[in-house]
């Protein structure tokens, strides 16, 4: 049965429909873009430093730059954009505003305050006037220790995101009272299921910060158990990957089919996919700890099995989205087995950016399978391969989708036409090419053992042995990719800034999303039973984590065997360095 879903006020932009919400979304997007600008620039600094092309920071400060790059891009950029998209999705698909716009502004401001605290703490690593430090990298687990302000900032940011989720639930509950017999509209369903696993996974990191890391940083407790904080971080740390990805998935499901000129192939399949992510995102984090001593191999094997199940929703997505695009292309006159590809709107930067991001995500899926396999993971663990992998996932599947989506969303929430579609098309292509060069070289470098997370990857008295080419070529390829990515970033920001100064336009497209070929009436009502899926997700987490956590606490103690911690940026004691050198070179 063919169903077309779109807002009842289809001829108007989002700004016309929800002017108050549009302001919050615009603010969230700009917060996201600022984080992208700073974090992206720091990425260039790192790439040029590591590859020895241009060095103007001290190698000891590399970790401050790396921490800022990771936090600003992986946490701030992605989640600010997410809260903007989800607020749009809930209000548009329910065709009603949020319950209380003051509450919406409150969580946004809380996230901003958290970001500022975290950012200033990290900046303290290179600015002597700021008496703070947080060279703890994106993963921020012990034994690296940050200033308390860093942890407080993270808590505020995460609690802000929790309140954002509460805002979306309140809005849905209000809608449900008015529409008791209606199925949850697909975009709202996607936002709510994602929020539920966000609540579930952030409990781990909240526990880690509030019970262990913050009291330890404040001096209330003397030590922590590093393995416990690592495990609690990765309990959150893999699910956060899906938290970034779900808004991108949402865009692929509800925007790409519309941009292609057609409809979503199957609403029920999309619901199944999001339910699977709710169930499986969290109990898999131990696959990041395959090389951690202190966790039994059996638990790691269970985590690997769960991880492999996660391929299912990704493959379902690939099928559904490509089928939807093919439907759209055939509606536009496309024919043949592959000839329909020519009928897609490749001149549209929104479509092309999202499609290329999806293509890159397919490559990321293959390298992700290698990361997830216990035995082959040993080959690439902690190598540059992993960095290449997540630059395909968060750095392209997510970031490129978000940038492409911004070309549609910013006009919707500002009422101004995009400054240049040609520049936008060029931007998504340059990003794609830049990431091709950079991530390919990183993957290849990882295969011959080049480590990640170091400013000085080239050890003295040792030569890496690349399968093809030379280390110099690999470095040149990374540097070239990083420069192209920075150019693409500048093109994006220029377009966004100039769009903001554009005149108001009356010719913007209406605020709609894709209809469906098979609608929610074709799916069992149980798919909308959020309580049931949440309960099963909780059970899976208990099954996946109870025994490993109990084992870690039993063997290392709740607060660890007197681990004092390290503050990398504060000082470097030459005696300690010499001692380390003597250990490896007696």
């Amino acid at each position, binding site marked *: 049965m063919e169903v077309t879903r779109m807002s009842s006020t289809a001829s108007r932009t989002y700004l016309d429909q929800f002017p108050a919400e549009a302001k919050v979304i615009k603010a969230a997007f700009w917060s996201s873009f600022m984080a992208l600008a700073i974090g992206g620039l720091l990425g260039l600094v790192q790439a040029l430093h590591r590859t020895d092309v241009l060095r103007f920071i001290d190698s000891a400060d590399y970790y401050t730059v790396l921490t800022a790059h990771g936090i600003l891009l992986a946490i701030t950029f992605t989640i600010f954009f997410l809260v903007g998209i989800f607020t749009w999705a809930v209000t548009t698909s329910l065709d009603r505003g949020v319950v209380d716009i003051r509450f919406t502004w409150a969580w946004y401001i809380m996230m901003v305050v958290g970001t500022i605290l975290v950012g200033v703490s990290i900046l303290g690593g290179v600015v002597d006037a700021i008496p703070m430090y947080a060279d703890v990298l994106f993963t921020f687990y012990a034994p690296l220790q940050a200033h308390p302000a860093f942890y407080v900032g993270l808590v505020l940011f995460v609690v802000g995101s929790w309140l954002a989720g509460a805002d979306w639930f309140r809005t849905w509950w209000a809608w449900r009272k008015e529409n008791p017999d209606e199925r949850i509209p697909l975009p709202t369903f996607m936002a709510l299921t994602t929020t539920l696993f966000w609540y579930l996974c952030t409990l781990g990191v909240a526990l880690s910060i509030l019970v262990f890391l913050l009291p330890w940083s404040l001096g209330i407790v003397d030590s922590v158990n590093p393995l416990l904080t690592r495990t609690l971080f990765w309990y959150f740390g893999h699910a956060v990957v899906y938290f970034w990805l779900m808004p991108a998935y949402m865009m692929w499901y509800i925007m790409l089919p519309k941009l292609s000129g057609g409809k979503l192939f199957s609403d029920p399949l999309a619901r199944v996919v999001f339910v699977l992510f709710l169930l499986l995102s969290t109990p898999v984090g131990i696959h990041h700890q395959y090389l951690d001593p202190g966790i039994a191999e059996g638990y790691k094997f269970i985590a690997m099995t769960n991880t492999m199940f996660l391929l299912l929703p990704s493959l379902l997505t690939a099928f559904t989205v490509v089928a939807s695009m093919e439907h759209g292309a055939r509606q536009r006159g496309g024919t043949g087995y592959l000839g329909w590809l*020519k009928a897609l709107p*490749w001149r549209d930067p929104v479509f092309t950016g999202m499609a290329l991001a999806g293509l890159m995500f397919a490559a990321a899926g293959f390298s992700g399978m290698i990361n997830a396999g216990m035995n082959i993971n040993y080959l690439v663990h902690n190598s540059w391969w992993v960095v290449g992998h997540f630059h395909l996932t968060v750095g392209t599947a997510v970031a490129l989708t978000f940038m492409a989506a911004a070309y549609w969303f910013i006009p919707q929430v500002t009422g101004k036409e995009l400054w240049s579609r040609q520049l936008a098309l060029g931007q998504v292509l340059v990003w794609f090419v830049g990431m091709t060069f950079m991530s*390919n070289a990183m993957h290849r470098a990882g295969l011959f053992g080049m480590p990640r997370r170091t400013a000085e990857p080239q050890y003295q008295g040792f030569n890496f042995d690349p399968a093809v080419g030379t280390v110099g070529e690999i470095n040149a390829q990374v540097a070239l990719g990083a420069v192209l990515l920075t150019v693409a970033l500048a093109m994006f920001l220029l377009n966004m800034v100039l769009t903001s100064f554009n005149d108001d336009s009356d010719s913007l497209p209406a605020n709609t999303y894709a209809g469906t070929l098979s609608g929610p009436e074709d799916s069992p009502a149980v798919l909308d039973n959020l309580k049931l899926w949440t309960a099963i997700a909780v059970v899976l987490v208990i099954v996946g984590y109870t025994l490993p956590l109990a084992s870690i606490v039993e063997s290392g103690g709740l607060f660890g065997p007197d681990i004092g911690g390290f503050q990398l940026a504060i000082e470097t004691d030459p005696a300690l360095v010499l001692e380390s050198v003597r250990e490896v070179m007696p």
Partner: protein
Amino acid sequence: MRISKGALLVVIAVLIPFVVEFRTALSWFGIELSVLESLVLGGAAILAVVLWAVWPPNGNAEAELSGSR
């Protein structure tokens, strides 16, 4: 043109990872290309795609050009 200009740009962009990976794949068969050889190969592939894209589908370029005048 056989495809739109936008589609041509996308095809060229997508060609780049194939050219980059092709070098690695060839090494499995004992064929090791230098960077310069890879660049020449990539340039040739892009040129071929551009020629294919701008060539009239029936192959009769002169007729197409005279008809368009």
